[in-house]
């Protein structure tokens, strides 16, 4: 279905999951970006006592999620930009990272239980299956990454007033 004057939403356009990031460095043709803090973690009144942040400060957790983009738009350090990934990329990434290792672990456990039946052997087989699945996930992830399916794309520069909202649906309107 394409957009028309009566129905301005084009459902055939690829929906994007958008997020806001800061340009922290520019190296040649590459711009390094850091995502803005998107959850309430670290920004609420209980942040100092909250365990939901995981190990490390908010700053170094964001640093760990730093990513690069081709700087075709001539981005400068300090600029805020809106980046996006395809809606189905998140599902594809989740399936690769979690479903494959889980499936191999469960299959290995079921086979060990059927063949031997002892808990210790089943446990060892499941750990082995999990490690095998992680190796397989690594191969598939590098394949997806090489095809550029997991890479975020530069969409537009963000205004200073734009607040961080990681889950906005980007449906282009006709004639705009």
């Amino acid at each position, binding site marked *: 279905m394409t957009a028309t004057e009566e129905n301005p939403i084009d459902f055939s356009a690829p929906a994007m*999951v958008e997020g806001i990031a800061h340009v922290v460095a520019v190296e040649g043709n590459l711009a390094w970006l850091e*995502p803005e803090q*998107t*959850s309430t*973690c670290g920004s609420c009144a209980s942040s100092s006592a*909250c*365990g*939901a*942040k*995981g*190990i490390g400060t908010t700053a170094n*957790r964001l640093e*760990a*999620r730093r*990513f690069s983009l081709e700087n075709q738009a001539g981005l400068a350090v300090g600029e805020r930009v809106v980046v996006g*990934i395809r*809606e*189905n*990329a*998140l*599902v594809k*990434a*989740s*399936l*690769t*990272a*979690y*479903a494959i*290792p*889980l499936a191999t*672990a*469960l299959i290995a*456990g*079921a086979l060990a*239980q059927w063949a031997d039946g002892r*808990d210790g052997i*089943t*446990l060892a087989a*499941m*750990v082995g299956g*999990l490690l095998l699945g*992680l190796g397989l*996930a*690594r191969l598939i*992830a*590098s394949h*997806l*990454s090489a095809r550029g399916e*997991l*890479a*975020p794309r530069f969409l537009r520069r963000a205004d200073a007033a734009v607040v961080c909202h*990681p*889950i906005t*649906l980007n449906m282009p309107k006709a004639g705009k």
Partner: protein
Amino acid sequence: MKEYILLMVSAALVNNVILARFLGLCSFMGVTTRIDTAVGMGLATTFVITVSSMADWAVATYLLEPYNLWYLRTVTFILVIAAAVQFTELTVKKVSPPLFQMLGIYLPLITTNCAVLGIAILLVEGRMTFIGATLFAFASSIGYSLVMVIFAGLRERLALADVPRLFAGPPIGFIVAGLLALAFMGFSGMSTT
């Protein structure tokens, strides 16, 4: 085989972790604004629950029970879950940095998800075999993911609906969650496990 199927149906649908046991409600309301984010959170939680339940079963069977340290189980399980989340985070980061950039946001939220601890306590109190405990944890987390995705789909439709201003946002979300819980009550009686 039949007992494992009954166990899994019971854990996923009849005693659903969100709608029957009321665990993991913060992520149920917080990460269900879109289907793809709900799928991401559901799969991450499924992975963490299954892996941490395997570790919890091993710790309970080979450490807590022989040494009569049963009273330490809650503290021990919290430690095991935190370690499982960190293990997952480090593994995803090592396996694929692009995946970590996309999925890393969900993992810290799982550490404080009470569903993970609740399932660990339920499976060791049920005195199950290792494979039974793992399947119970896996099925419970599949039930969790299923409800997350259904609720996210309903909320996406609600976002387009003309809801009276008084009910817009969380109020209509809670009403829909209540109706969904009523619908899931229809599964009770399917299994007594």
